[in-house]
Each structure stands twice: as C-alpha cells, then as structure tokens.
C-alpha cells in the first residue's frame, strides 16, 4: 500500500525493550517511575536517556524499590499526570500490594512487563508466571507478540485505560530476552499523527483524576461491610468486562489510523475449517503459526487461536469457538499455577467455559517454555500431533511428559 508523504513512518531497528521505551515516549508520558530488573533494564536506561537528553519532557522518579515505583505512580496519576512504568518477575511481585491500589483507585497507569521466571532458583528468561500470578488484581492484561506490537500497544493502552468508562490500569506483556533483547524493525509514525490518536494531556490533567485543593476529596477511607465496599469491587469487574467494547473500538481506530491489522481480544489463524486447535498466548504463539503452516502443508486441519488479552478474558470468542464444531483443543501456558486443576492458569480458565457448550470437546492442557526452556517449531508440531492423536484415537496420550493430565513439554523425567 502506498503511503502519502504525511503518513510516512520512521523505521528503526530496535530491541523489544526499546520499543517499549519508544512507546512511552511517543505517548507523551508526564511521569515515569521504574526500578531496574533483568530483562526489563534497558527500558529504564533508554527512558533515562530520553528524559535526561530532553527528548522527552517527563519527570523520572528513580525510586529505591518497585513498591515505591507503583506508589509513586499512584500519587502522580492522581494529579492527572500520564504515568508509566516497566518491570519484570520479582519486581512485579514486589509491587503486588500497589497493583491493587492502582486498580482500586481506578488510575489509568500503563506498565510494560518483560516477563521472566520467578526465583528461587534465579531465572531471568521468558516465563509468564510473573504476570499470571497477579492476573486478578484489576489490570487489563495484553500480550504483545511482536516488537511492533509492543510499541503500538502502549499507544492503544493509554487510549483505552484513560477512557472514563474504563479507568483501569493496563499491562502490556512480552517475553524476557526472546522479545526484550532481540532486535527487529519497528515503524514509528509521525508524532503529530500519534498526538491526534492519543492527545497530549490537557493542561489540568484529566478531570476525573485530579487531586485538586479547590475541590478537596478524601480517597480510600474505611468503608464498613454494609456500606458500598462490595459495590465498588463489582464496579471494577463490571468496567473490566465492559472494556471489551472499548478495546475493540480502539484497535479498529488504531488499525485505520496507522494501517495495521491487529485482531481484537483474540487472533485466529487458520481456524475456520480446523478440527484441532491450539490456544496459546505471547511470543511462542507467534511461532505456532509456523507449526500450523507445516502441518497444513501435510494436509492436517489445524489452527491457532491466540489470546491477545487475558484480562478481560475473551469469554465470547472462546464460547463461539467451542460451539463451532471443534473436537480437540490444546491450551498452552508459559507459566505455572501450582496445585490448580491443570497446573496452568490459563488452561484452567479456558476449561472453565466449557459448560457454555453442549458439544463434547477434548482438551489437553500443556505447560511449555518455563524459565526460557526452548520450544522449537518441531516441539510445537509434536504437541499438535498429540492433539491429532486424541482426535484419531479417542484417547489421551500417556507418555511421561503427561503428568496429572497436563503435558509438561520437555519434562526431564527420572531426575
């Protein structure tokens, strides 16, 4: 497609982390607070460059811990300042108390996560257990599986989060190292066009967020059980569920404005006539497309159903899939939920929706890529073959990587 002079974009080769820093810069954030942690560190460093070299007019609060990061952003966001952070693994867990503070204060803070394994033992490689273990704290959670998507998602994230009907914080998540530290081209639209899509803050900040001495309000004082505490909680869930419409609208507008083709809460790849479908998320889901292509070449009707969002959860899209006549589904988690029904958080959640269909569907949960363990296209094909085996033989595989009903891909048995 030919672009007009005005629509030209600047294509730069950059790491996933730099794409996050660029996303914050181009969103004209007012306040940044962050604390270094591998593999997020170069986001923090790049943003320091931007701010100290006056390429970005923002206050950068270089605090002494991640708890202070999120506390500082609660403060800044409440003055109406557009506020940004980035973290990973231990840092995200260290923030946990304040993550709830942000969502319960209904603050549109955007934070990027370069996901890594949780210690001990120390592990710094791709693993979404960090974000998955805080998935219920009232933040929108979106996975970005390309560098371009990391950058673009931040612009969309502010637009969605700051919508008064949504007023919820937003995580853009990508995987440590495999995305954070690899370099790819990212196309940066002209700032004026970005500002049109995502206006710079009005001078007084967003009205509904202001700490304003002329209109003094007390926030967060004790609410008794028979007062509205329960109702406030419901409103958070309600806004999260209803944000789906806003998410769709924003993605559509973004696609139109910048010539992209992002899906909605999910992205379907070769699903239409598929008999066997893999449900997956994050960076490895992008790679699943290669596995699908190869299997399709051999005549297998397989497809990929990629979750772009897990909060809000794409209930409707999944139920539609269940009712489409599909026979066998695999659900992969790149993260753990010890002792839950499948050992994987998202496979459990996907399966919780099965009662919305009358169809009998076989589901094989899988856990892969833990702590950065390599998952090749062949490994992915291997998983699809297990799903095809279920379809053809009407029984579940029993090799030793199948433990407690879940495939732990690459499990070293007998150690």
């Amino acid at each position, binding site marked *: 497609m030919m672009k007009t002079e005005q629509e030209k974009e600047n294509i730069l080769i950059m790491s996933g982390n730099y794409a996050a820093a660029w996303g914050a810069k181009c969103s004209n954030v007012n306040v940044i607070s962050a604390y270094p942690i591998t593999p997020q560190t170069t986001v923090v460093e790049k943003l320091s460059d931007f701010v100290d070299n006056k390429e970005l007019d923002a206050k950068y609060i270089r*605090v*002494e811990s991640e708890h202070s990061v999120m*506390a500082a952003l609660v403060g800044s966001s409440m003055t109406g300042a557009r506020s940004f952070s980035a973290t990973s693994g231990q840092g995200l867990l260290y923030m946990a108390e304040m993550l709830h503070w942000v969502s319960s204060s209904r603050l549109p803070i955007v934070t990027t996560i370069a996901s890594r394994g949780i210690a001990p033992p120390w592990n710094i490689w791709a693993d979404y257990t960090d974000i998955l273990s805080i998935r219920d704290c009232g933040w929108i959670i979106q996975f970005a599986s390309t560098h371009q998507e990391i950058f673009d998602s931040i612009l969309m994230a502010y637009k969605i989060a700051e919508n008064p009907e949504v007023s919820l914080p937003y995580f853009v998540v990508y995987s440590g190292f495999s995305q954070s530290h690899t370099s790819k081209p990212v196309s940066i639209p002209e700032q004026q066009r970005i500002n049109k899509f995502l206006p710079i803050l009005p001078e007084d900040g967003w009205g509904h967020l202001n*700490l304003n001495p002329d209109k003094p309000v007390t926030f967060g004082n004790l609410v008794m059980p028979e007062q509205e505490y329960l109702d406030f909680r419901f409103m958070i869930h309600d806004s999260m569920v209803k944000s789906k419409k806003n998410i769709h609208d924003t993605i559509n507008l973004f696609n139109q404005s910048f010539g992209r083709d992002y899906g909605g809460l999910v992205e379907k790849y070769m699903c239409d006539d598929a008999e066997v479908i893999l449900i997956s998320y994050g960076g490895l889901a992008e790679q699943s497309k290669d596995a699908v292509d190869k299997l399709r070449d051999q005549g297998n009707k397989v497809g990929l159903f990629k979750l772009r969002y897990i909060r809000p959860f794409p209930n409707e899209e999944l139920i539609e899939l269940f009712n489409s006549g599909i026979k066998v589904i695999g659900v992969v988690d790149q993260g753990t939920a010890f002792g839950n029904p499948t050992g994987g958080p998202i496979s459990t959640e996907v399966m919780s929706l099965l009662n919305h269909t009358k169809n009998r569907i076989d589901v094989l949960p899988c856990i892969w890529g833990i702590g950065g363990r390599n998952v090749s296209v062949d490994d992915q094909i291997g998983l699809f073959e297990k799903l095809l085996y279920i379809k053809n033989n009407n029984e579940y595989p029993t090799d030793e990587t199948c433990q407690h009903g879940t495939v732990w891909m690459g499990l070293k048995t007998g150690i």
Partner: protein
Amino acid sequence: MITTKELLKIESVKPELFLAGSSSCAGCPSVLALRWALKALGKKTVVVSPACCANVYIGLWPKASPAVPYINMAFAAGASAAAGVVAGYESLGKKDINVLTWAGDGGTVDIGIQALSGAIERNTNFIYACYDNEGYMNTGTQRSSSTPKYTVTTTTPTGKHMHKKDISQIVAAHDIPYVATCLATDPVDVYNTFMEAKAIHGPKFIHILTPCAPGWRFDVANSIDMGAMAVKSGFFILWKQVNGRLEIKKKSLRYMDKQKRIPVGDYLKGQGRFSKLTKEQIDDMQNWVDKRCEKISARAEYEANL
C-alpha cells in the same frame, strides 16, 4: 516564632482544614497536631497518609474531616506516593501546592523507612511528618522500633528489650535541609515548625512526639502534661537542624542542664505501660536520657561555633 496570643489573632489560621466530628479517640493529640499543621500549611495542601490511626480518625466513608485532598495510602508508601504527587504536579507545571505525608511511627521508622530515605535522597520537595505515639496503635498497641525500652505492649508483654530508634537523627544524616522535632500537645510549636518547614524547598522532616492515652495507659486529661514532662525530663528533646546546623529549641534548652531536668522516672511512672519498671530499669533509662542530652548539647554547641 509566634506566641499563642499572636497566633490566635492571625486570620489565616481561623479556617478549619480539619473539620470537627472526626472518629478519633477522645482528646487525641495526633488530631490536634494535624489540625494545627494544616493551619500552617493552608488549603493548597495535599496529604498522603499511610496506614496508621489517621486512616481511621479522618472519618469513616463517606464522611471525612480533612478539608484538603487527602489520600489514604499503603503502609510502606507514605513517602513514595507523596513523591509521586510532587512529580505529578511538577510535570504539569503546578508549583504552589504543599505535599505532606502524615504517618505514624510504624509507617516511618519501620515499614516506611526505605521509601522515606529514598524520597529524601532524591531531594523531593515535600514535608514528611511522623506523629510518634511510640507503637502500632491502629492495630491495638504493638511494639514498633520507636517504642521505648521496657515498654509493655501486646507484642512485648514482659517489656521491650531495646531503646527507641532515633529516627530524626537517621533522617538528619541524609543532609536534609530541614529536620525538627516538636510536641503534638503544643499546637504553637506545631504551627511554628510547619511554618518554618513550608518556607524551605526540598525534603523536610518533622518528628512529633504524640502522647497516646489508650496506648500508654494514662488518663487522657493528662495528655498535655504528659507531653510537657517528656520534654522536662529530657526524654524527648526539641531541636531542629536547618541546612546542616543543629540547634536545640528554646523550650528544651534549659533541660539540657541535668540539675533542671525532672527525673525520667517521674515521666515514666505516670504511664501504665511502664508500671512494672524496676529501680534498675529506671536507672538505665535515666542513663540513656542523660547521655543523649549530653551528646546533643555538645553537638549543638560545636555546630553553633562552626
């Protein structure tokens, strides 16, 4: 420095920024101190208050006593959230708003000390006030590291084993532009201290000794005397350090002379939390007080001559 008589004539202190009807214990000196702190700071003030009695005594939702924007905050986050408010206003070009952290001793000396130290090191332009009632009173009188030695609390049922942490000296060691101690039971002192702090750019720290009748176990009618005795015994020393120079406040100065001090036992004895103190323990406390008074006097003298 303004006297009581002068103070009552000033128009700007007449409006109440902490409204009547709060849900504090009767006669709570922390409320008194906050009320007078706000009179000094004025209506262009935002308060950030980490978990402490204040989170309760400001009023139960939907009622609230503060007539300024007020954020209830997580226990460890008094200083960090305030730093965010400051940065937010700075990023939006708003310069005339005071940001005050109002925290208890637990939120300051224990769980919040890291964030406090960080905010000071970053030269955050705010006032951090710690009202020190020497224990976790919100949760029912547990020990904090600001609880004095030998105090009986619900987590030190046979008495605490170590002395109170000297938070203001810890803060002073940060090269902070302004640190001062004052008494919650002396509103004029509170007012003057906050007026002084307000005029200074950068981090300011104010340590406010706050007698707590239910927590210390004495008759609430004696609160004012209790504060005065803490100073007269030399147990609590009123001082300030402005731009690196330490100075003992006038109200404490005469009690730096051991002859003029009342025995610390007289101060402790009036409090149920010390009712089981032995003679040796009182002597130990007297020794602690005498040494601190000596040390701070020597320092003030040395710094006066710099």
